[in-house]
């Protein structure tokens, strides 16, 4: 029996096969959507760049060479060099690591926090809901970048603090989303059945409600990734994110601003990287929305 027939088996023989089969089905449908496939390809390139940066990059990202300052793109320096003679291509490739780190950590911190707060709020309702959603509304009512700026100002500049600041500002939309989803099925019969089997509130929320909120949260997180990258770049641009000489894309644009009229490539190349990666996340997010929609799985 080949792997694909095993994965698409109508009557799986084990739990693992059933779950892998579902994952395979999602992957296959993602691949059938050209934009989602493009998004996946872009992100795959990003991950590969981050993983193999030292081997891909022809030069050191921080090694200065003042003799070769501000060279335009050429065969030796594909994206040119900056004001300290550093190879921009090498810096962009290494910057992928920072971008991935920021995006990954923000998602890992803010999505679960938002999910749990939202699910608890929606499940219990009443005063729990009012208090939790009140807090969420306060965070939502402040502009993201300003709030992040305030946190960074309080915590001190640096990439770790930038990540924490962005994560703190990113969770409220997930809480809202998870609450709205929870409200639609907190009175569903399968939730009642779990309660009637003697399951505790924590069990019902953790094992029955959260799994149903995750797909919409994953979609939302993917679509928000672009915004997170831009916020991180914005913080870097303002000098409050990654500190020199770290090759963070936003910080690179900020440095290139001084030369933008005569040496356009210094600011444009990292900007281009930000656009491509943000687009990649958006495409993937749109594709995931089509595929993970619970109703699409029911169609014969």
């Amino acid at each position: 029996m080949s792997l694909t027939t095993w994965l698409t088996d109508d009557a799986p023989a084990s739990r693992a096969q059933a779950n892998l089969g579902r994952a395979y089905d999602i992957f296959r449908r993602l691949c059938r959507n050209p934009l989602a496939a493009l998004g996946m390809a872009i992100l795959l390139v990003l991950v590969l760049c981050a993983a193999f940066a030292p081997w891909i990059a022809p030069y050191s990202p921080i090694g200065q060479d003042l003799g070769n300052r501000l060279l335009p793109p050429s065969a030796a320096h594909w994206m040119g060099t900056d004001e300290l003679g550093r190879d921009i291509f090498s810096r962009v490739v290494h910057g992928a690591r920072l971008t991935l780190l920021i995006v990954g950590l923000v998602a890992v911190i803010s999505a679960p926090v938002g999910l749990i707060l939202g699910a608890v709020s929606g499940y219990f309702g009443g005063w729990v809901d009012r208090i939790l959603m009140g807090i969420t509304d306060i965070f939502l009512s402040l502009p993201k970048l300003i709030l992040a700026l305030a946190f960074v100002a309080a915590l001190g500049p640096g990439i770790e603090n930038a990540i924490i600041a962005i994560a703190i500002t990113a969770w409220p939309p997930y809480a809202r989303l998870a609450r709205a989803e929870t409200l639609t099925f907190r009175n569903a019969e399968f939730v009642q059945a779990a309660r009637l089997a003697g399951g505790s509130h924590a069990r019902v929320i953790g094992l029955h409600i959260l799994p149903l909120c995750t797909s919409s949260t994953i979609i939302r997180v993917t679509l928000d990734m672009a915004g997170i990258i831009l916020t991180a770049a914005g913080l870097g641009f303002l000098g409050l994110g990654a500190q020199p000489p770290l090759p963070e894309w936003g910080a690179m644009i900020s440095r290139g601003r001084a030369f933008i009229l005569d040496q356009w490539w210094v600011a444009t190349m990292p900007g281009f990287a930000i656009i491509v990666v943000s687009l990649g996340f958006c495409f993937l997010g749109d594709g995931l929305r089509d595929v993970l929609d619970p109703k699409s799985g029911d169609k014969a």
Partner: protein
Amino acid sequence: MGFDMSAIHLKDLNIFYGDTQVVHDVTLDVAPGESFALVGESGSGKSTILKAIMGLAPDWTGTIEVDGKPRSHGPDRAFSRQCQMVFQDPYGSLHPRKTIDATLAEPLLIHGLKNRDARVVELLGEVGLDARFRFRFPHQLSGGQRQRVAIARALALEPKFLLLDEPTSALDVSIQAEILNLLKRLRKERGLTYLMVTHNLPVVAFMCDRLAVMRHGRIEEIASAEALKTGALATPYARELYRLSNPEETAEEQP
């Protein structure tokens, strides 16, 4: 009718949803091993009584006793091994992202029961589902198959009482016949007590020993299944329901 020891005993039960009272002064006794039906149209409060017994409609006054023990106002672990419920909608009562295996193992896991794998296979067999359904997701099953899974889940903790909320009204007639046969067989084999909510009088005639006709949250009449089959019902409302549910047979009697 009175019993020395009722399986389910309701006395002066009033149930509220917020400010509205949906059930008024309901008193009834279900004998051990009996199959009892609550019959009425939508809004008659019949399903609400099941929910109150299960602890899903916590706002009530009066007495609810199951197996001689008074019920609390919420679901609790000890009670869940005594009494379980089968819901009306086979599409809404199974978690859409869990395999049948996970759904059936859940109650066993909560109560820390051993031999879960063997029990799940056994449960599937008891409700007439092939073992190859075990690792499928609900959306891969038909309505009738899902309702069998829901029944298997209700049986997982081996309760003595089953509350059935319109268990077949969302199903095709041929599937309804299969599920009704299954419920009848399970009751015989396991000595279960049923309290069943339905609007379908012929189903009551097939499944139940006695019935209570409800209207606007009150019991109009409690009658035996024999009285139902012959149309010997006492109150005008019950007779009206009988006539509407049975147009062919009564057509000849009418001028």
